[in-house]
């Protein structure tokens, strides 16, 4: 998995969505990381606005760990139209 995508996802969740950074680790589940509907909305917004990638909050929060979330986004980026 591309470390840059993982780092970007963690950065968005912490500095831009305001989640406390400590729990947001690659192996943490989204619940352990504190990813709530607001954080998912901020992530979806930034993916759309800055990376032209439209993913619903539902699809994002269906992932189990932060690493899985990053891998899922990486796959979507790769197959982006």
């Amino acid at each position, binding site marked *: 998995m591309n470390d840059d995508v993982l780092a970007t996802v963690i950065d968005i969740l912490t*500095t*831009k*969505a305001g989640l406390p950074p400590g729990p947001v680790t690659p192996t943490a589940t989204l619940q352990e990381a504190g990813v*709530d509907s*607001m954080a998912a*909305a901020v992530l*979806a917004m*930034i993916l759309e606005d800055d990376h032209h990638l439209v993913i619903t*909050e539902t699809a994002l929060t269906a992932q189990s760990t932060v690493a899985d979330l990053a891998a899922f986004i990486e796959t979507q980026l790769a197959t982006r139209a």
Partner: protein
Amino acid sequence: MTGMVLAGLGCWLPPTVVANTDLMNTEMDSFVRRRIGVVSRHRISQGAATVHLAAEAARLAMHAAAVNAVDTLILATTTPDRLCPAGAPEVASRLGLTGIPAFDINAGCSGFLYALQLARGLLATSAGTVLVVGAESASTMVNPADPSTAPIFGDGAGAAVVRRAEQGEDSTFGPTAWGSDGTLADAIAIPAGGSRQRVPAPGRGDADLFLHLRGPEVLRNAVRRMKSAATEAAEAAGWTLDDVDLLITHQANATISTALAAALPFPRERMPSNIHRVGNTAAASVPILLAEAAAQGLLAQGNRLLLTAFGSGLSWAATTALWPCVASLTAYQKETTP
């Protein structure tokens, strides 16, 4: 463009303070503190409502402006005492101003900035002074049993006296960028009580009489619209965001403010905030924050302020302000700030 000078500010928060711990368990309290940013909020007392809050704040603003009359009064609110009549005439009468033109506007949480823009038009045509009030009994529009809205909102009012600028005098307020999107009208809505649906639908109990909020959709639109409006207003004033001393935003929730700071980008430390103590007071949010920041000496003459708000409708607005030497009176701070 007619110059509009800020002559006085006031804000009034009802004495009753409701802490998170009065409303919710420890786990919810922790979440609301961290993610919404609210620790306590003020609550109107039984029998009082928005007209009462507005009159108290307006009285303080007039005192701060050292005026005992104004030509016109605009009340921005989402929670009028009654559907009919508007509250502004009653506010004017309580101030001893029976007879002046007085009207309400509803642009949700953008209401105060919308009202300022209307005031500018009035100052260019029919008025020398306008009293612009943002007041909300926001606690009355939320369902106490709905965790997605109940903890967020608070009650209060902020008011500003504005007057036409003299020849050659600096205008306090600069260009305004504002807009709306009715295709998302249902994202923030109280379904029942108006002409479309007078009473709650069968089987829905009284849920339709309270605010419904589509959180993620509102968050995305709030950040995008406040960012574009703020950027547009600053550019129209010939400012870059680096030129802006302080960004005064509608206190919607802490996560929206954090995301907006990242999106602009703008330093979070130059975004005054009082949401932890007053909650989201809708149309009263910007004037309360301005009045408190001025009364606390956070705003210096010559500061460049960028004001931005977003609310139901959907609606948004932003404007610039070159801070004047102005007095601001808050209910719990008797002395004025020179």
